[in-house]
């Protein structure tokens, strides 16, 4: 396992920093986690701290050196962190449990797995293009995706900070999982809070990461987001890795099974949908290819004719 990693958290223009971030790795497995405590609720930073700490400790308990099932781990860790926050609130007779967003990512065997609740994001970037990104649990963001409002209108929408899934809080979190994402050398995985992605136009993050130099690009992006956030800049936090191994190298011939997601049906559908958009050119069938195919068929006809 080989990678370059950079993480940083800044308060922005806020008096406190309610973001918490962490990474941890064993010989063969890497965990990254970002949590954004919710300011509207009491003790937002406590919720974020519990989440990050709980998930990191669980990782250290279970990654020996590989996690048996990364998705199962993520599911258990996020849900248990949710209950840990509720327990904390109950122990102290808090009127309302504190809340936090959470996005966590595991990379092992050159495959990335991630899960999230809320509007902290994960971007998987290859060659400056977004390979995968989490979908915010935000009604406003879903409205943008559905074309009901423009991205511009969303920036000023009164409910832009409202999310419908988080850890803590009265409702059980809705945790969404990625598909298994095989990584190649140079791929970037980036986790960040809305203080980073919020003020930036959508193409800035993948473009900034196109060089793959996370050590420079991460602080540069934070600078840019903080500047754009202006007088009221939110807390900003980000972890980014550049992956240095190559998934394909050691698994030639077994890629198809290895990339099978937990729910093979859903994810295969996605793969088809992507193929259908058909931006990649069709493989060209040359005159020689045609001649060869015809010769092959005629040879088979002769062979099987009696």
């Amino acid at each position, binding site marked *: 396992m080989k990678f370059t990693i950079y993480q940083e958290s800044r308060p922005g223009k806020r008096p406190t920093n309610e973001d918490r971030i962490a990474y941890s790795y064993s010989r063969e497995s890497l965990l990254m986690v970002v949590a954004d405590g919710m300011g509207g609720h009491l003790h937002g930073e406590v919720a974020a701290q519990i989440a990050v700490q709980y998930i990191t400790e669980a990782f250290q308990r279970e990654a020996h050196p590989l996690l048996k099932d990364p998705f199962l781990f993520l599911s258990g860790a996020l849900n248990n962190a949710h209950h840990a926050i509720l327990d904390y609130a109950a122990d102290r007779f808090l009127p309302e449990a504190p809340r936090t967003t959470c996005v966590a990512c595991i990379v092992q065997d050159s495959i990335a797995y991630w899960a999230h609740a809320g509007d902290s994001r994960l971007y998987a970037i290859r060659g400056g293009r977004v390979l995968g990104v989490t979908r915010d649990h935000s009604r406003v963001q879903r409205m943008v995706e559905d074309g009901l409002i423009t991205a511009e209108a969303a920036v000023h929408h009164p409910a832009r900070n409202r999310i419908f899934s988080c850890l803590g809080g009265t409702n059980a979190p809705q945790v969404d999982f990625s598909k298994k994402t095989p990584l190649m050398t140079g791929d970037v995985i980036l986790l960040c809070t809305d203080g980073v992605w919020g003020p930036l136009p959508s193409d800035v993050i993948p473009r900034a990461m196109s060089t793959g130099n996370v050590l420079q690009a991460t602080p540069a992006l934070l600078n840019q987001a903080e500047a754009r956030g202006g007088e009221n800049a939110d807390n900003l936090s980000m972890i980014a890795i550049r992956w240095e191994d190559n998934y394909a190298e050691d698994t030639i011939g077994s890629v198809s099974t290895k990339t099978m997601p937990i729910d093979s049906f859903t994810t*295969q559908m996605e793969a088809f949908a992507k193929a*259908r958009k058909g931006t990649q050119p*069709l493989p*060209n069938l040359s005159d020689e290819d*045609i001649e060869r195919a015809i010769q092959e*068929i005629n040879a088979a*006809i002769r062979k*099987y004719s009696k």
Partner: protein
Amino acid sequence: MPPQANVPLPPGYQLDEYRIERQLSLGGFSIVYLAFDKEDTPVAIKEYLPNSLALRSQGDALPSIAEENVATFRYGMKCFFEEGRALAKISHPNVVRVQNFFRANETVYMVMHYERGRTLQEHIQKHKGEIRESFIRAIFARLLNGLREVHTHKLLHLDIKPSNIYLRNDGTPVLIDFGAARQTLSLDTPLLKPMYTPGFAAPEQYNNTRRELLGPWTDIYSVGASMYACMAAAAPQAADQRLERDQLAAAVKRWPEKYSKQLLETVDWCMRLNYLERPQSVFALQKALADKARSVPRPTFLGGLRKRVRDLIK
């Protein structure tokens, strides 16, 4: 603009070593001709000519292909080659035999053995409601021998219907037109949509995103629907409509006087909407057709429950 129909090559046209006699059929993907070879033996020649990509005008031999369609046209040729490649390896009395493959007029041609006779479709039209059980059993038992050979070669026909079942003058059936077979390539070429025939295509063929559900049971649904059509003298309700509101009367209920219960149950078995409940292989179906006494296994309560749980997990 909907694609226009292609103009066939004219009678008397010398195509390679063959002389075109007349057009036999015209589809969206190809044209089939009756032609004669040097020894004056009749052959059927299939010309690759998808009308969404290549159009031939009156008086021309060469089709005109728009610049932007050239790549897709050539890519679609691969489907045609797949069909030829698969059929070339199958030498079976109940499967159409390919004799030659050649290139001309900027496209490709497949030469097949020409069979004299009529399609099962024509036979049904002619003998509306008079088709006997012995006829159905005899035709489909032989046809299934051919289909079994096809499946053995890891190929699915995917367009079995009465008009693709040819009856020789001696009464033996031949499975023809493998144009829909192995349509995996159409997944990423939207210009070449998968073909299916309403009434005979299995429900899983309508769901283009779940190609992995296609299997021998898919062809078996079509075989069941073709047997049903023999009895009803009409195509059964299309599977996509059945999924919404199943109005297809079970064969067992419709013709209890006319056909044996065992045959009717076999037809209904083939036409189950859930592919897991159909015969899973041609062999299983052949066994049912051959064994007149045995009745079709009904899903047990426990089996049904297990299946529902499995579906939930999916």
